[in-house]
């Protein structure tokens, strides 16, 4: 009720400037940036919350809640001043305690924030006065503002820094963002109203997130003008939407890439020859063609990244060379199958997520390619829970097909460092560990670039993963929506400038 009254107060007197309805596959269960796990939650957070800094149109860090930041000479601490006159949606002022609370809540292990990794570089944070905080880092930082994009939460809405996922805040969130959460509706939609006191002055009066779990309907609903925005268009719907004069397509290039990961705890796949053989048997452009267009990759960065090493050549599709490698690894070909020295067929399982768009097509295509070359392949399509249990906990897999998405920092430390939290394939290379550690500490952008390009070259050769591609991806919006600019990751960052006719 309070929310509704407040929302009314915030929106009263403002011109009604149309409403924007967009579709998500699943309604978020939690609207709390501490526990953001899906892109649909991240996008909704972008509408309701703000960070200390956010990307400007050139993707440089620009102050949002912060007014300025001053880095100490030793680069081991920084003082940050907040803008004056900022208010939460409930009318309370934004204070340094909110920054201190947010960072401490993210760091609190009993909160188990999904965003905890974003603040591991901050050793501690303290309030200096009524307008500023000081942050102490675990190591030298060159551009801390680039890492201060996480959303700030109102300390006054929580009892302590141990925050539970079940906290009532999850459905009654209070942010500083351009839209105010009004209601979670019976049909799983979420309604937001313009925050007319937001410094970013949003032009659209109402935003509605609708849950449309059947992807087949999403494009249709846009064509029928039941929606104004479709976040991600399926490749098969591109032609229909492109031919509709009431719809405009926009590139939505998330910083993500697809890969085939090899389980290096597996007795066969721990040998690089076997991994290379499988890579050489795989015709990557042929896997990509049926599911869309994109850039094939040779390493763990997108091609437009400064860390992408363009000197590294892609693994060719070379089945004969693959056969030589398998022979060197002790396998023999009996005319139909590759047989190991133990007399067993070389048989592998490829697992992928059921809900990963078009992954099933890729896996089946890859199964066909490898089986044609004498490797028996079984495929598993896993639910998220099965994936977590089998791939992450039990390491019960041979190959996995999946994708990683990154924010602007493109930090691959957790994926390739031998102690990295996301290194579920079990990759270990001392050189890479050292390079990744140095890259994290590098205060010279050129040095960081060189270090990560070297990482790119090494992991390309070591093949903990076969890097596949970045997919061209599009959003579709009604032509009624004007001034559209889409943030490459969070989608809604620049939405305050959008308007609806």
């Amino acid at each position, binding site marked *: 009720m309070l929310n509704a009254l407040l929302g009314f107060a915030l929106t009263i007197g403002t011109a009604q400037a149309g409403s924007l309805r967009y579709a998500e596959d699943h309604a978020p*269960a939690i609207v709390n940036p501490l526990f953001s796990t899906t892109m649909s939650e991240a996008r909704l957070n972008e509408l309701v919350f703000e960070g200390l800094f956010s990307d400007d149109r050139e993707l440089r860090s620009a102050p949002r809640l912060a007014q300025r930041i001053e880095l100490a000479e030793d680069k081991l601490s920084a003082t940050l001043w907040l803008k004056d006159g900022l208010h939460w949606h409930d009318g309370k002022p934004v204070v340094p305690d909110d920054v201190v609370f947010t960072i401490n809540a993210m760091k609190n292990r009993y909160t188990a924030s999904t965003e905890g990794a974003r603040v591991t570089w901050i050793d501690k944070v303290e309030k200096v006065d009524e307008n500023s905080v000081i942050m102490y880092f675990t190591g030298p930082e060159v551009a801390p503002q680039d890492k201060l994009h996480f959303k700030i939460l109102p300390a006054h809405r929580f009892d302590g820094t141990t925050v539970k996922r079940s906290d009532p805040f*999850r459905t009654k969130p209070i942010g500083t963002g351009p839209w105010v959460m009004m209601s979670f509706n019976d049909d*799983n939609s979420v309604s937001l109203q313009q925050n007319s006191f937001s410094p970013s002055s949003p032009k659209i009066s109402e935003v509605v997130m*609708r849950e449309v*779990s059947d992807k087949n309907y999403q494009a249709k609903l846009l064509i029928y003008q039941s929606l104004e925005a479709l976040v991600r268009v399926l490749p098969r719907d591109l032609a229909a939407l492109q031919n509709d004069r009431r719809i405009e397509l926009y590139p939505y290039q998330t910083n993500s890439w697809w890969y085939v990961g090899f389980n290096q705890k597996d007795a066969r796949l721990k040998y690089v020859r076997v991994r290379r053989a499988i890579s050489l048997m795989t015709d990557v452009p042929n896997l990509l063609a049926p599911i869309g267009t994109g850039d094939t990759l040779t390493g763990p960065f997108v091609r437009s990244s400064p860390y992408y090493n363009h000197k590294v050549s892609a693994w060719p599709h070379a089945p004969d060379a693959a056969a030589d490698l398998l022979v060197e690894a002790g396998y023999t070909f009996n005319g139909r199958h590759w047989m190991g020295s133990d007399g067993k067929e070389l048989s592998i399982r490829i697992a992928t997520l059921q809900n990963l768009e078009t992954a099933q097509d890729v896996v089946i295509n890859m199964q066909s390619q490898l089986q044609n070359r004498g490797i028996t392949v079984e495929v598993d399509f896993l639910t*998220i829970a*099965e994936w977590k249990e089998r791939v992450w906990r039990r390491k019960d897999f041979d190959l996995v097909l999946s994708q990683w998405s990154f924010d602007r920092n493109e930090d691959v430390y957790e994926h390739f460092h031998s102690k990295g939290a996301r290194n579920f394939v079990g990759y270990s290379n001392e050189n890479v560990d050292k390079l990744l550690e140095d890259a994290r500490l590098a205060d010279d952008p050129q040095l960081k670039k060189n270090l990560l390009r070297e990482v790119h070259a090494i992991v390309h050769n070591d093949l903990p993963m076969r890097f596949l591609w970045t997919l061209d991806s599009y959003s579709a919006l009604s032509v009624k929506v004007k001034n559209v600019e889409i943030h490459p990751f969070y989608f809604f960052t620049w939405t305050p400038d959008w308007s609806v006719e």
Partner: protein
Amino acid sequence: MVRRVVRIVVSAALTVAGAVGLVLLMMALAPGDPIDLIPGGEAIRPQLEAEWGLDQPLVVRWLQTLGRMARGDLGTSISYRPGAPVLEVIGAASVRSLGWLLAALLLAATQSVALAWYTAGRSSWIRGLLRWVSVAPVFLLAHLSVHSINTITFWGMNLSYWGRPEWFALPDQPSSVRAVLAVVLLAVGSGAVTELHLEVESALTRIRASGYVDAARARGSSTFRLVAWNLLPPLASLLANRAAFFAGGLVVLERVLLLNGAGSILWQSALSHDYPVAMGVALLAAIWVAGARSLADFTRTAVDPRMRESASW
């Protein structure tokens, strides 16, 4: 009679306990658990397992759940709507689903009796037609209906034959059209109309040929009320058997038609391993099925004197 009532109540209670246990078992056997779905959840697994009771053996969890349910406490959601009381999560949605199920049963009963009354004892093309209409499963009928209705409506709108209806486009816009469609499809699809029609027709033929109807006819009195009264027990049994099928069909229809009912919640809570919510819905589904069967039993006992005699014996 008392013994029969006790038997019905005990049977209903066992159905509920069994259904809850079955859902718990199925979810426990499914790979993964709710903690797997929380990024970083592994770090605090012992804490969460204790908080959610996952550290207890399955039988203990089942008994605890039944005990809580007996006290009217369905627990709190752990992942679908974290922290929200299950009753609050499923309450309004369950009432909606119950309404749709009752409406579908009523429609199924009305249409099957009306059709059977006409076709019983006749050779009719209606049987063939019903078989064709009813053969498709409800999810397929739902997709076809939504697609056809949307396409035709949009075509008419583009040619200015009509304006944009409030409910357009299905299933996105909240409207009663979605609920009506769900009710009709449940009462028709997955063989419902054919099966019910044939069973009612067979019962009707048997009743019309019975001695007491012949006697009434010989006396020159109207047989309508007599036939209708005697049709009640078999009709009640048929509908009670159909209640479980309808509940299953509604789970699918609610997903396709974006109806936020108990079925849709069951689907999502099962995917997110939210045991309390899934078991809460299972409890309601079991009560629905057990209630329908009990009601059918009571109807048979009340209408058929032979049942009363066997019960008192």
